[in-house]
């Protein structure tokens, strides 16, 4: 801390008047703990007095102990240069930064009538006359500094705050404090100092001993030890745990990937299990929440990877492909529990939500019947997602695993409104997972021409019986269905494929990698275009597209498309519409209403739950899986479906990960099918990972990996290994925060010692 004082002689001109009643020479002693900023506090006090044109001297009494150890610091103030090089034994002003230090030792040498300023969250009255001999001020500087965010996650720094309270006790006007903070370059901490200035509470010394402090010169000197033979030694039996006001708490915190997973997967759990114990153990964790790992490991948009803290370091962990690796390299088949009184549940719809609900119920020993309109289970997975992204075998493997739990599948049974009403009577519960409604159409002239059709119908047909195309294809839309249609069309023999989308390429809701792959395969994306007319007589021969401008942002944050009158036309032989699906449920019997994922008949709650896209409209496989699981749990709990077991805790943030503990290691990329002629080739394009090494890159955010960093970093060696992690020895932990500062993954945090429920 340096600053320049304009000099005319050897001392600065007073820029602040001396407060009335200040007696010189003045000695100030500050008691704190290493890391609290006590020494700086004494320096700030000195700086404040230099503003009054006085000579100062300030120094810390440094200990060999580290953070948390009691520390003293001193400031002397006088009208003449100060010769005294000793510590301060008889302070006129005593400032105690930590209430835990208060005791006879701290008060040693403090004469009655002296000023005592204590940082405490207790009221002055609660000290019951303990300090009535002193002019006694109290301030909760820790709370103020914490509120103002001064310090680090490990330690709150209170020196600049308490200086505000001290200025008030000195009798300095607030304007002087402001001026001093500005000139000391502490403007950022002024708000905290002002709070302290305003909140400090003072009780005056009781009258009969209100005499001014006796300064050192007049007092008998402290005793001097005799000249000894130096045979005496000091036992080192300090229980340094009493020094701490904060303690490290060894605990788990939610990883961002876990919180981001719509299916509710324990992502950190399965990756760490894969790393440490292999694919089978990883599968055991994954299969708790995820009935379709082979599917999600291929087609999930992976919000976990968006959330991955490693993204802020050297690229997110390739979580999706690790899930695939586990699914493709494990043989685990969960066995159902036995329930003495199994429920009988009907699940309507054999898509991802229905499969997930059925799986969770069957795992727990309940009897489940799935009613599926199509000839086979899978829903969009079977008839929508093309085989080059999701091969038949992968889907079958997951579905077989579910059926092996004893789930009954009635395929080819379309459920009518009357059926639903009947099922609600016949079964203990019904979970309806019927997906989105029918596909959205485009209101444009010529929509009825041959060759203009829904992309979903096209995809379904290709999967069932294959199809040959010729000429040019235009796909309308920007989601995964649009991309799938485009890539499928190329494989069916189309000469060219264009995707027409009304917003920017970056706004396309499809998975980014899929958009990229489509580009590599030759699909052309035509952004900012809206089809307004289909041309042709009988069969479609072209599309008139209008230019679209980006308007102001809508509720989704994307810019609203504004269709202009500028048009052009694209020649084509086929148009595939991929504009999304309606969200209404076409299945509801008369009088039924859906509210909060349940069916109601008037005021009566029916034993019917909804899950997946028909309930939430999230539109991804992973959301549907999560929704199906929660509906199953809700059936079992007989309560609403909206709740999950997860708490509302914040995920571990990138700033809480110690990047310096990790080597930069680029993400392991998925293998890709070598480029070949696309026509007729429905081989899986993405070959997945070559091995499970990617799991090594997981930071394991908030989840201890027993890496010993805390143990190694502890300056006092008071962290020990125990069976399930580590224990901090509270008798000796000084609360230095080193273990928390060094923990690579935020599996430890500092908490106030008087915090409720803290155990060390």
């Amino acid at each position: 801390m340096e600053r320049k004082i304009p000099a005319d002689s050897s001392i600065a001109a007073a820029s602040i008047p001396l407060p009335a009643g200040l007696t010189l020479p003045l000695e100030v002693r500050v008691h704190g703990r290493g890391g609290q900023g006590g020494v700086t506090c004494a320096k700030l006090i000195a700086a404040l007095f230099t503003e009054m044109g006085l000579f100062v001297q300030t120094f810390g009494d440094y200990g060999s102990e580290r953070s948390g150890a009691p520390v003293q610091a001193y400031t002397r103030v006088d009208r003449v240069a100060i010769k005294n090089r000793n510590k301060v034994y008889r302070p006129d002003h005593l400032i105690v930064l930590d209430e835990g230090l208060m005791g006879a030792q701290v008060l040693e040498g403090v004469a009655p009538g002296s000023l005592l300023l204590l940082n405490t969250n207790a009221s002055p009255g609660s000290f019951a006359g303990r300090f009535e001999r002193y002019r006694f001020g109290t301030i909760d500087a820790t709370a103020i500094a914490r509120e103002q965010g001064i310090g680090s996650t490990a330690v709150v720094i209170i020196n600049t705050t308490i200086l505000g309270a001290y200025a008030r006790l000195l009798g300095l006007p607030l304007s002087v404090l402001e001026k001093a903070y500005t000139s000391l370059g502490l403007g950022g901490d002024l708000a905290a100092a002002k709070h302290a200035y305003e909140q400090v509470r003072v009780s005056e010394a009781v009258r009969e001993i209100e005499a001014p402090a006796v300064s050192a010169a007049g007092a008998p000197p402290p005793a001097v030890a005799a000249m000894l033979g130096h045979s005496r030694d000091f036992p080192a039996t300090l229980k340094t745990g009493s020094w701490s006001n904060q303690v490290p708490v060894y605990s788990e915190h939610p990883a961002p990937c876990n919180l981001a997973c719509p299916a509710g997967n324990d992502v950190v759990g399965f990756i760490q299990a894969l790393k440490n114990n292999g694919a089978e153990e990883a599968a055991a964790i994954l299969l708790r929440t995820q009935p379709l790992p082979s599917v999600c490991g291929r087609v999930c948009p992976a919000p976990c990877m968006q959330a991955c803290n490693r993204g802020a370091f050297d690229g997110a962990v390739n979580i999706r492909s690790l899930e695939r690796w586990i699914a493709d390299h494990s043989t685990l088949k969960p066995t159902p529990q036995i329930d003495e009184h199994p429920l009988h549940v009907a699940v309507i719809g054999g898509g991802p939500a229905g499969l997930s609900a059925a799986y969770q119920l069957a795992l727990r020993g309940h009897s489940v019947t799935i009613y599926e309109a199509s000839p086979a289970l899978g829903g969009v997975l079977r008839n929508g997602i093309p085989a080059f992204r999701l091969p038949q075998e992968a889907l079958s493997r997951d579905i077989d695993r579910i059926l092996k739990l004893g789930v009954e599948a009635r395929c080819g049974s379309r459920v009518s409104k009357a059926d639903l009403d009947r099922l609600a009577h016949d079964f203990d519960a019904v979970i309806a997972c019927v997906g989105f409604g029918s596909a959205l159409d485009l209101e444009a002239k010529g929509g009825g021409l041959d060759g203009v059709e829904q992309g979903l119908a096209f995809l379904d047909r290709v999967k069932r019986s294959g199809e040959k195309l010729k000429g040019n294809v235009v796909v309308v839309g920007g989601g995964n269905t649009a991309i799938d249609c485009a890539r499928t069309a190329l494989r069916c023999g189309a000469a060219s494929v264009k995707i027409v989308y009304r917003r920017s390429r970056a706004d396309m809701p499809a998975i980014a990698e899929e958009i990229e792959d489509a580009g590599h395969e030759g699909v052309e994306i035509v952004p900012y275009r809206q089809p307004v007319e289909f041309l042709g007589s009988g069969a479609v021969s072209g599309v008139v597209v209008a230019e679209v401008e980006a308007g102001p942002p809508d509720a989704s944050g994307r810019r609203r498309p504004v269709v202009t009158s500028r048009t052009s036309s694209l020649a084509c032989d086929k148009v595939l519409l991929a504009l999304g699906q309606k969200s209404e449920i076409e299945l509801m019997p008369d009088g039924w209403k859906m509210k909060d994922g349940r069916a109601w008949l008037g005021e009566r709650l029916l034993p019917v739950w909804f899950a997946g896209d028909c309930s939430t409209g999230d539109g991804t496989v992973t959301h549907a899986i999560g929704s199906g699981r929660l509906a199953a749990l809700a059936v079992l709990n007989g309560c609403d479906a909206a709740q999950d077991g997860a708490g509302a805790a914040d995920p571990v943030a990138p700033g809480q990960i110690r990047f310096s503990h990790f080597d930069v290691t680029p993400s392991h990329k998925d293998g890709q099918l070598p480029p070949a002629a696309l026509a007729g080739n429905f081989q899986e394009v993405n070959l997945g990972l070559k091995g499970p090494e990617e799991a090594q890159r997981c930071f394991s955010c908030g989840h201890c990996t027993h890496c010993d960093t805390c143990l190694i970093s502890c300056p006092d060696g008071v962290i020990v290994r125990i069976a399930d992690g580590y224990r901090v020895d509270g008798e000796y932990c000084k609360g230095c925060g080193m273990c928390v500062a060094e923990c690579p993954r935020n599996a430890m945090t500092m908490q106030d010692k008087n915090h409720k429920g803290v155990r060390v």
Partner: protein
Amino acid sequence: MTVELLSANHGAALAATLAARANRKGRGFCSGVYPITPSTECMEYLCQQKIEKGRVIKVESEHSAMGVCIGAAAAGARSFTATSSNGLAYMFENCIAAAMLRLPVVIAVANRTLGPPWNIWADHSDALTLRDHGLIQFYCADNQELFDTVLSAFRLAEDKRVMMPAMVNMEGFILSHTVAQTNIPDQAQVDDFLPLTDIPHRLGDVPHTLGQIEVPHQTEVHRWQHHNAMLDVPKVYAEIQKEFEGVFGRSLHDIVVPYRADDAETLIVSMGTIGVTAERAVDMLRAEGKRVGSLRVRLFRPLPTDAIRAHYAGKKRIAVIDRNISLGLGGILWSETRALADPGAVVQSYMAGLGGGDVRPEHIVKMLGDLEPRKIAGPPAMMEAV
């Protein structure tokens, strides 16, 4: 000139910075540094400074830090480093090299006792290990004195009659970390005060060797030259004091600082900050009518025997307080100066404040209580400063 609120460590670094900049029109400045408690702040501050034609090089050890300084000075640059305790011990070999090569490196030492067992606090035992090898040694007592001494040490060390390293000592923490107002001269004043560094034997255009092997006679000659150059230091320093006063308008401390010593019967002799504590003890004892004075030795190498002898003359009792111990002998200042007292005078060795103990005026009063009845000196005594 400005007044700055600086720690002594920062003051030393700032003095070195001003000296460094003052050589910008000459052969520049180069410093090798390595941190050690309690000297670290000094090198940290120096590293933050922008110095035209100057470089501060962070190296991997104190030995290398002095290696950089030797290289810099051998090439004709101004040079400076800072260290402490076992760091100085590790630098020892190269400190001797700098001295024997007659290179005017200035070294700021934040004195700290040597370990193990480890103790980070002050005593003079680190610097005194280097007393015999041709480095000038000053011991300071306050922030301003330290700043002024570092600045003047460049001029003294680089004087052609002297031409050797100068070490400026401040007790660790007690002085190194104490913050107080310090007068800081303008660069123009420092430019006036410090001539451009000119090392006649620097490695220049004509190839030659520094520190090559020599025969016994050459060693005798070189030691004798070095010794005599050291003996010239008080004379050169006196000239520098005059210059200093002329340029900066204030005085530079003498090599010894007497306090109420002229009419004293008893003299307290010490170095560093204990010297000003002794002055406070003198005031306390004078108030009781005791004829006590103090002598603070600022320049320890070369030992200013004439000045000390002059102040010892006529004193009946002399208490020499050492913040050090030469194990197997006693206080080092005591052992070096006891022969300078009058015959029959009692010159008693007291050692106090080792490993950072706080030596207060009361300790010194107690020592004098021990000294007063003595007819002859006893064995060196240790005072426990708790």
